């Protein structure tokens, strides 16, 4: 089978090169160029439009006929995981995170970071992010929020709202800060996140880092995402992949999650004690700035 394929390919190549040899005698003369270029251009122009439009039409039909199915098992697993996460009074999760950035021409560039979160509900948080582009810390002790950039040795502290949920909202809307692994704090808190899901499927069992999980895939308006949930009595998310659909390059974000459900910490852990040489700066209120700009 393989040899016959090879033979036929060889034959074909020879045939082509023979023909080319005949043609090269005159191909570069103006007449010759015209003789070959014109038919190609004309057929190209004639074929291009219909092919392009049918391709578009086919795509349109495909997306229309794609009926969003919500597999009840997948939705139930998500509910169960959310409810379980809400029972955790405190936890530590370490994560290997990668995120695609997209260049102007559509090429994606991946950046990586290691994240370490210690959370004590409802109002204490300590996050360390060691990324390609910096090493930063976030502290929330129920009263103040601090961001500390170790490389610049700057920190900024602002009075904070009373809960983690309100804090993440404020940081995102006013200050342009998205805390990492935010979904861990969203699941199981409200129905709106569930209602956004347009498609859900149970992919099947999958082993992540030696732990047997069930893999699920979900579709929403702007993102497709997959989650690996540990099987058994501790339905923890072990892996999460989010694919952004609003950019043609479909950049991807992924998190590998490593859990510690019995973290040891003192209350001081959540309050920022500036190193002697660290300098305080401000945290820009970007929302206020953009409002001012729009006036």
């Amino acid at each position: 089978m393989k040899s016959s394929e090879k033979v036929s390919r060889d034959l074909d190549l020879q045939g082509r090169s023979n023909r080319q040899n005949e043609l090269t005698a005159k191909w570069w003369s103006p007449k010759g160029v015209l003789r070959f270029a014109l038919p190609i251009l004309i057929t190209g122009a004639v074929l291009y439009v219909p092919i392009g439009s049918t391709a578009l039409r086919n795509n349109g039909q495909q997306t229309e006929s794609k009926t969003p199915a919500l597999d009840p098992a997948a939705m139930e697993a998500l509910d169960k995981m959310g409810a379980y996460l809400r029972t955790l009074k405190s936890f530590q999760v370490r994560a290997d995170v990668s995120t695609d950035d997209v260049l102007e021409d559509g090429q994606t560039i991946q950046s990586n970071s290691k994240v370490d979160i210690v959370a004590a509900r409802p109002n204490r948080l300590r996050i360390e992010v060691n990324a390609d582009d910096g090493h930063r810390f976030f502290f929330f002790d129920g009263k103040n929020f601090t961001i500390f950039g170790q490389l610049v040795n700057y920190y900024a502290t602002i009075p904070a709202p009373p809960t983690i949920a309100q804090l993440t909202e404020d940081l995102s809307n006013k200050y342009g800060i998205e805390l990492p692994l935010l979904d861990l704090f969203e699941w199981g808190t409200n129905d709106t996140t569930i209602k956004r899901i347009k498609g859900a499927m149970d992919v099947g069992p999958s082993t992540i880092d030696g732990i047997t999980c069930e893999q699920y895939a979900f579709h929403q308006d702007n993102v497709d995402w997959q989650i690996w949930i540990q099987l058994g009595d501790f339905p923890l998310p072990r892996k999460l992949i989010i694919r952004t659909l609003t950019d043609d390059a479909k950049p991807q974000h992924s998190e590998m999650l490593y859990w510690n459900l019995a973290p040891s910490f003192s209350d001081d852990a959540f309050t920022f004690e500036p190193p002697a040489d660290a300098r305080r700066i401000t945290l820009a209120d970007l929302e206020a700035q953009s409002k001012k700009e729009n006036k």
Partner: protein
Amino acid sequence: MRRDMNRFYVISALVVIVILLSGPTLSAQRYRGSAHTNINHSANINRNTNINVNRNVNVNVNNSYHGGGYYYGGCCYHPVAVAAAVTATAVVTAAVVGSIVHSVPPSCTTVIVNGLAYQQCGNTWYQPQFAGTTTTYVVVNPPR
């Protein structure tokens, strides 16, 4: 002879076409966007615009001894914050007050005024700030 000329025209035309088709000229690539980092909580913030890709460039240029210059956060700044710079009034300093930069010259010194750090670079004063998780420097009037 005439045949040679014809050949010359055809070949030079092909060369021109090849040059035209060989794509955009080499220039620094910039970011146009980024992946969502969570499912439901997407901040209305456009990261990454107008910043060169190469991390090494950023580090080498900006990692100054005084700690004021390191371009922390690498890739990202907030376009809104930059746009806001345009409205500021100009005074007689080396740089326009209100304009925002990602690094300051290496010769600057850190000065603390009312507990906040400033970078003084000759007659120009910069106030460092976190814009999102990125450090930017706003040109300000002398704080004292």
